[in-house]
């Protein structure tokens, strides 16, 4: 066992091609994930968190492509691997759960078969054996009556059940890294908690590291030890989860934390407007000069409008990308 981290992403850049022009949809993103660790990525829609995870598993498709940087998985660079080498990692050592359990499963294929595929693909077992393993996998994600359920089609299952099936697929080959892209966004709140517990418990039991992507700060705080905050294709802050919420350093993070509604705040402070961050995330082709957050930032100065802030280290291994960090 090496002491190296499981995943090291360095200066990752993802290009969006529009005709002949290329725009960096993700730029200078660096983070590491240790074995068995749960790392969170938060940010608004369109900040580049989903495409970052797709880049890690090699599933970026035109018009998106990796434009630079390195992705080191288990000490080996994987950003330039051939498709066939990448396929050996995909599903087997790095797997992914998607946001939409409604559409992420093939509607015309029984769920048992869709789980069994993993064993046939990566373990080289027969279909009979794979089907038996699929029943076990379904039982492990606590789907009741798995022997019967394997024959069901996705439309016969509820959203939560389908996401359980997705988890069973993703964890079938006991991967080292699980990419969870908004795994509970499409689910009811009560079901959310069950699914998150399941991911936490199963990944801990298998020693699987998790990259949890969400726009839900509460969820991230609950699940992750460390958090990266993304804004407009950049990692603007990376900290221990508790510190991010207690003492956010980047103005964008403060804005996100301040806009969380607090239960019971109304009885204490009376009726108040919910806080928000003014403005919207700029489109990829129109990122502003200087700090990308400057048009929406309350603390922006002239410096922020011209010069791109570098990365400043913080205590406890945190990082922030701001001229005026607190």
């Amino acid at each position, binding site marked *: 066992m090496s002491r190296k981290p499981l995943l090291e992403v360095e200066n990752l850049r993802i290009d969006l091609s529009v005709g002949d022009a290329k725009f960096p949809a993700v730029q200078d993103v660096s983070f590491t994930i240790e074995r068995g660790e749960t790392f969170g990525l938060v940010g608004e829609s369109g900040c580049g968190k989903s495409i970052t995870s797709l880049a890690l*598993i090699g*599933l970026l498709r035109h018009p998106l492509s990796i434009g630079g940087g390195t992705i080191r998985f288990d000490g080996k660079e994987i950003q330039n691997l051939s498709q*066939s080498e*990448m*396929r*050996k*990692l*995909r*599903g*087997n050592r790095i*797997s*992914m759960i*998607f946001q*939409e359990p409604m*559409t*992420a*499963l*093939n*509607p*015309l*294929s029984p769920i048992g078969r869709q789980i069994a*595929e*993993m064993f046939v*693909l*990566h373990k080289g077992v027969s279909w009979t054996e794979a089907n038996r393993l699929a029943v076990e996998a379904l039982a492990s994600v606590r789907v009741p009556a798995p022997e019967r359920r394997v024959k069901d*089609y996705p*439309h016969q299952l509820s959203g939560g059940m389908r996401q359980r099936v*997705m988890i069973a*697929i993703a964890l079938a080959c006991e991967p080292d890294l699980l990419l969870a892209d908004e795994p509970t966004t499409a689910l009811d709140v009560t079901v959310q908690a069950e699914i998150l517990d399941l991911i936490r418990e199963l990944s801990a039991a298998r020693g699987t590291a998790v990259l949890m992507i969400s726009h839900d700060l509460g969820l991230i705080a609950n699940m992750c030890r460390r958090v990266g905050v993304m804004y407009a294709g950049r990692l603007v802050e990376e900290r221990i989860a508790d510190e991010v919420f207690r003492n956010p350093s980047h103005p964008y993070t403060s804005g996100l934390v301040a806009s969380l509604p607090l239960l019971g705040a109304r009885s204490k402070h009376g009726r108040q407007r919910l806080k928000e961050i003014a403005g919207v995330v700029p489109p990829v082709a129109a990122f502003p000069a200087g700090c990308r957050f400057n048009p929406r930032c309350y603390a922006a100065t002239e410096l922020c409008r011209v010069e791109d802030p570098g990365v400043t280290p913080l205590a406890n291994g945190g990082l922030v990308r701001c001229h005026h960090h607190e």
Partner: protein
Amino acid sequence: MLSFIVRRLLQTLPIILAVAALIFVMFSVIPGTFASSMSDDGRSVLDAEVMARMNKEFGLDDPVYVRFGKYIAQLATFDLGTSFRTRQPVASVIADRLWPTAQLSFAAMLFAIVVGVPLGFIAALRPGSWIDTISMVSAVSGLSLPKFWLGLMLMYLFALVLGWLPSFGYGGGDPRYIILPAIALGVAPLALLARTTRAAVLEIMNADFVRTARSKGMSESKVVRWHLTRNALVIILTTIGLQFGTVIGQAVVVEKLFSWPGLGSLLVDSVTLRDIPVVQGSILVIVLLFLIINMLVDVLCAIIDPRIKYT
């Protein structure tokens, strides 16, 4: 399943009634009757008295609704009536013609499916490639070619110049005779099938579950075989069912051109002669054929797609 088929068959009844009514309305609007068409060669003039007698004999002097009522009553006993022209039962006239038309339509659809579906698949799996461009350009051309012109060109090339195939006729069931008319009839559905297949495959390629399949570490060929084909098949089958109807309808032109003794040429001749019972019967049979094929397609789709219920 059985109740589904029975229910679908019952649903055809109102459709058949509507079609019959439509034909009655049509023939009461267009000028001329069987009696007048007999004398319509411009040389002889039929005596008005003879015409009146013929009209009376065929019951054509009754009001439309009376004739319609009689016809429906007759239809209820599975009697299609008697041809004005040949004085034979319409059912037996049609029965003679049904098999050649079925042969021709199936051959044309077979040609369209065997060539069109793989072409659409290949085009979709290599979008923007030369094979995609060529197949889609030829698909559009195939859709735009008039059938009678294409048929003439095929005759000219393969029968006259090359001498490989007979130019026209039924040839007593000799399979060489069916090739040219089947191609002439099959090119348009081929083009449409190729385009539909391409669109369906391209759409499914972008579906979330295909991304899931890729994230499992599946090769592209396995993605296509395990996840894409079945999903595309539902759309392709539906198109095939609809195209079958068009093909049977368009067989009229091709049958006439190639002197194919099918329902289509019978229909054209009978319309010219205002032989209403034969026209009625032929159209009803064609409609019935179309409905049955589409019912079969629906059953097949329901077998492939578990979300489709037999309702």
